[in-house]
């Protein structure tokens, strides 16, 4: 689904990660892991086409990330990034109204179904400012799913949420993946979410300027020799 080869990313003249290679299989739940400031969000911005790579290539289903035109993937931003001047229904309806010729009734039906899917039916006419952090993220997922993309990117979906809301969101992501077969790429450093939903992952490190580990989360936790990887997966043992 996604093939990244020799990718170098950064901002300005600063290289953050270089020579990054990985692939994400169709239907996988794949995580980009790393500590704060490790470059994982920068990598995501390149994957979704918001930044031009300094070098290397990104292919999504064989094509580079689209610039303009109908989106081929959905993105949940860390803050939800809902449009504050629009209601939830208008937020979810925006991509449908822009990229389809559906009539208002059909769009309304789809919007309601997407909001129902994320547990926000009844909140159609609420504005983002009237919602909690977890609700905003769920609404962000509903908007990302509006056009039924085959690929979903999630930037730190659990950040800033309480454990219960975070677990609910993990369940939702897992359900979307198993029920819809949607390829999911998650940027996170939440261990509970990683072990709950992620199947494969890479770990990036700013000091190494690249990938320092790849594989299944449990295998990395139990078998990695890299001290950074061990510290990431076993923070308690580091403290001790």
């Amino acid at each position: 689904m996604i093939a990244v080869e020799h990718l170098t990313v950064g901002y300005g003249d600063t290289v953050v990660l270089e020579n990054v290679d990985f692939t994400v299989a169709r239907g996988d739940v794949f995580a980009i892991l790393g500590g704060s400031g490790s470059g994982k969000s920068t990598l995501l911005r390149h994957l979704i086409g918001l930044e031009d790579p300094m070098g290397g290539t990104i292919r999504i289903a064989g094509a580079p990330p689209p610039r303009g035109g109908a989106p081929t993937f959905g993105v949940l931003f860390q803050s939800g990034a809902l449009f504050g001047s629009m209601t939830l229904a208008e937020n979810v309806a925006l991509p449908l109204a822009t990229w389809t010729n559906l009539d208002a009734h059909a769009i309304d039906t789809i919007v309601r179904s997407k909001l129902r899917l994320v547990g926000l039916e009844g909140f159609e006419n609420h504005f983002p400012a009237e919602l909690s952090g977890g609700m905003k993220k769920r609404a962000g997922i509903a908007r990302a799913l509006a056009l039924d993309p085959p690929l979903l990117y999630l930037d730190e979906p659990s950040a800033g949420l309480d454990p219960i809301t975070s677990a609910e969101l993990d369940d939702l992501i897992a359900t979307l993946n198993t029920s819809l077969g949607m390829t999911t790429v998650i940027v996170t450093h939440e261990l509970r979410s990683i072990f709950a939903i992620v199947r494969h992952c890479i770990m990036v490190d700013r000091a190494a300027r690249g990938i320092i580990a790849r594989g299944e989360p449990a295998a990395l936790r139990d078998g990695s020799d890299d001290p950074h990887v061990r510290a990431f997966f076993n923070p308690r043992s580091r403290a001790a």
Partner: protein
Amino acid sequence: MDSAAPAGYAPWVLTNTHDPGFRVERIDRSDGGAELRFAGQLRFRQCFASWQNVRRLARPGSGPLAFDLSGVDTLDGAATALLLDLRDEVVAGGGAAEIVGAHGGVRAMLDLYGSHPSRPSLQPKPAPIGILDEIGREVHGLVNETRDLDFVGDVVVAGAKAVRAPRSVNWRDVPRLMERAGADSVPIVLVINFLVGLVTGFQAAVQLKQFGANIFVADLVGLSVTRELAPLMTAIIVAGRSGAAFSAELGTMRVSEEIDALRTLGLDPFTFLVFPRVVTLVLVLPLLTVLGDLIGIAGGLLVALLGLDITTNAYLLETQKAVGLWDVFSGCLKTLFFGLGIALIACQRGLAAGGGAQGVGRATTSAVVTSLFAIVVVDALFTVLFHAFGH
């Protein structure tokens, strides 16, 4: 605070009279070493006043200096930091120093604060900027501003796209924006322009009265309001009100990733956000200016009625004679360009905002200041152009 400096081996004692629970004494031993015995509660709020005296007591002798904390019951975070710093200072000065006798919570505090090795700052403290540096930075900033011309190019491309595919423009926002930038501005536009007309009328009246030319107040107010004052004042109000609002709104959208979200939905921020705002101000500013013209003339009329014994009919007839359609039209023509400039500058500054709330604030300030500058420059250009073409 009491401090004593006894001779021989007798202790130097330091107590805080405001907090009798805090006490330090220095014992100079015969082997050249010394002990600083702390007792009671070492809390920052209590001991900071006497800390300079404690530092004096901690002067290194010929032997090692021991900070004895066996008598300390309580040690808070800031006091721990001061104590560790004092020990390091003695060591850095070539002396030997150690902290002894700490127990329980006091030991835990020392372990907590002392467990992190100190390391130098990763970058030096920002030095005060000299005047030459400041000039250099400003010049560099001005050169960088030329990159903003990219934005004009992007808007032109978006405009061409909008003409080819009008449905791609977010027209839905235009009525809402017109209400905010137009209808909501009406009260302040009326008040300001009325006062400007009133002040202009009053100043004119004072001079013209001396020559018995009272009626020409109508000419002066009518012409200056329609050609210059109403367009200028209305544009300034709109720049301060709507320009700032546009910039803050787009800046906030940028820092909260909403612009990125738009792009990932395949929507162009120029056609979705910038274009509706440009259309709004280009439409709204001439309409507000016409209102400003009318109310400005009314301001002059009030002065004429109250101070010059001119009747309403006479004033309006004189205004009608003096002010032609071109005068009103030329004023409105300028405001099309004022509106275009304000909207483009505000949107550019907003979309370029970065660095959180502070960045949004900077973008908004910059949008208003640059807009005001642009308004005056455009106004001057039009004045020269109209003059050149005999208007």
